[in-house]
């Protein structure tokens, strides 16, 4: 049995959880074992779970749980079901619980998984290593595996013809040693780690007041904004926008880099983006080597022109 953690927020299944479920489905096909989805954050059965691959669903609590309470629930359920695989997203919840679960289950742990393959009747797991400069593929000889899936890496598939059965087994919610005082959401937009389009800018912008053209472009494309490290270090942009080796590692479908040189530490956080577009006035900027499309020129001319052209295109369609 595979146990998958499915987080529900504002009555919607988190996209990162659907990614985890899609990966669990592949394991389930290779191993011929069933999937039990444990829903956190709601006690209403999401009927569509079957189409994503869940065979059974457990809805332990409607209440918001602390991470250690989620860990304890998954442990109880894993034991009850003699689970061989625990699959969850390496989102902020997963980062807090995946490795703790692995310790408690004496499990083989791989976090940051971007793909699975069949090797005979076994499964191998691929993840990025060396800050995106290579991949590693592992097998898990251990009896129990904990697999934490890298966000934005697995296509979500809802083509399964299953009807998920709701189980009524009760599990106990243990008292928590943690107390969440507040969840402070900083942006109203799609969080950077989940964004499919990212518009990012660097020191080439010269001054924080010049960011309006970047924000306009992001709004026109429905993108989330990001920045290089020096720009967040000097306070031109908020820290949570900083991508790269020391900041957030992201893998959007489209990454548009404007006035960023493309230093190796910056690339470490973005080089897994599916397509990279670079706008830079220096033909020698290293970023062009990592790009799919490039425009060499002055961003202060190109970006406003681009915004106008997109507006014009949108008003004609």
């Amino acid at each position, binding site marked *: 049995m595979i146990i998958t953690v499915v987080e529900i927020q504002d009555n919607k299944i988190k996209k990162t959880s659907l990614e985890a479920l899609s990966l669990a489905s592949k394991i389930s096909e290779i191993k011929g074992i069933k999937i039990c989805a444990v829903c956190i954050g709601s006690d209403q059965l999401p009927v569509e779970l079957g189409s994503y691959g869940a065979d059974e669903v457990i809805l332990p609590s409607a209440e918001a749980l602390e991470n250690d309470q989620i860990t304890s629930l998954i442990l109880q359920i894993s034991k009850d079901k003699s689970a061989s695989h625990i699959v969850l997203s*390496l*989102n*902020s919840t997963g*980062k*807090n619980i*995946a*490795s*703790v679960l*692995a*310790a*408690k289950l004496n499990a*083989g*742990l*791989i*976090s940051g998984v971007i793909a699975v393959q069949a090797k005979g009747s076994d499964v*191998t797991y691929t993840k990025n290593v*060396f*800050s995106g*400069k*290579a*991949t590693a*593929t*592992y*097998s*898990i*000889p*251990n009896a129990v595996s904990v697999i934490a899936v890298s966000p934005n890496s697995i296509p979500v598939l809802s083509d399964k013809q299953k009807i998920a059965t709701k189980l009524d087994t009760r599990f106990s919610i243990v008292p928590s*040693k*943690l*107390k*969440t*005082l507040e969840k*402070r*959401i*900083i*942006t109203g*937009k799609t*969080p*950077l780690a*989940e964004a499919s389009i990212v518009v990012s800018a660097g020191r080439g912008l010269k001054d924080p007041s010049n960011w309006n053209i970047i924000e306009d472009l992001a709004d026109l*494309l429905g993108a989330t904004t990001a920045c290089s490290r020096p720009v967040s270090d000097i306070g031109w942009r908020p*820290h949570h926008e900083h991508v790269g080796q*020391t900041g957030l*590692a992201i893998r959007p479908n489209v990454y548009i880099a404007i006035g960023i040189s493309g230093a*190796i530490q910056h690339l*470490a956080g973005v080089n897994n983006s599916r397509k990279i*577009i*670079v706008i830079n006035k220096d033909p020698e900027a290293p970023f*062009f*080597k990592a790009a*799919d*499309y*490039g*425009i*060499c020129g002055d961003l202060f*001319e190109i970006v406003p*022109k*681009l915004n106008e*052209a997109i507006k014009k295109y*949108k008003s004609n369609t």
Partner: protein
Amino acid sequence: MKILVCISKTPDTTSKIAFDSSNKKFVEDGVQFIMNPYDEWYALVRGLELKEQLGGQVDVIHVGDQNSESIIRKALAIGADAAIRIDHTPVDSFDTASQIAEIAKSRGYDLIFLGKETLDHNGSEVGGLVAGLLDWPYIAYASKLTQQNDTAIIESELEGGVRVIECKVPFVMSCAKGIAEQRIPNMMGIMNSKKKPLEVISPIASEAKIEIEKFELPSGKASVKMLSPDNIDELVDVFKNELKIL
């Protein structure tokens, strides 16, 4: 506060990444190893700041062979009081964590800090494993810590924001940007580091729970397609027809 900081070694960020002919082993020849920056800049420095605020002791622990000694000395030069090296090349993160937990169990630490991940395996696995093995709470990707006696208020990563959590010692915390600023060791620190205790301890038995099948380098990108800055419609066209984002 008695604080244990876990430090690991990783290849320098600019290292050439290459594997042996079996594709199962990273080629270390000519690679410059450094202390994992998140362990150094964030976990160690925040530990030292806490000691300065509340008194106590900061120990560093490393699982690795004696080639790591320069990294351990650097941690002592930055300000750690004592170091422990488990003389063992770990087989996986579970092994590393088991070695650390074994030591932590008997030595009365209040806090264990480490970096959010290492630059090589990028797993962020060891922190939670240590916490799980010790049955302590774990807080990942902390960007701010305020400690009053035995109670901590921690800000940690949440999609698009931060989660503010209260937690009592003991706990394990992985440290991310914002929690502290890098400290450069000074001459005095470097001199003193040579006199500080470095204990070498034999490992406990371990067995690998995961096995490497292969490492792979990405196939090189097709070369960049340059578009004209004077004909912006070309880019709009790419957005529309090739990237399908319009």
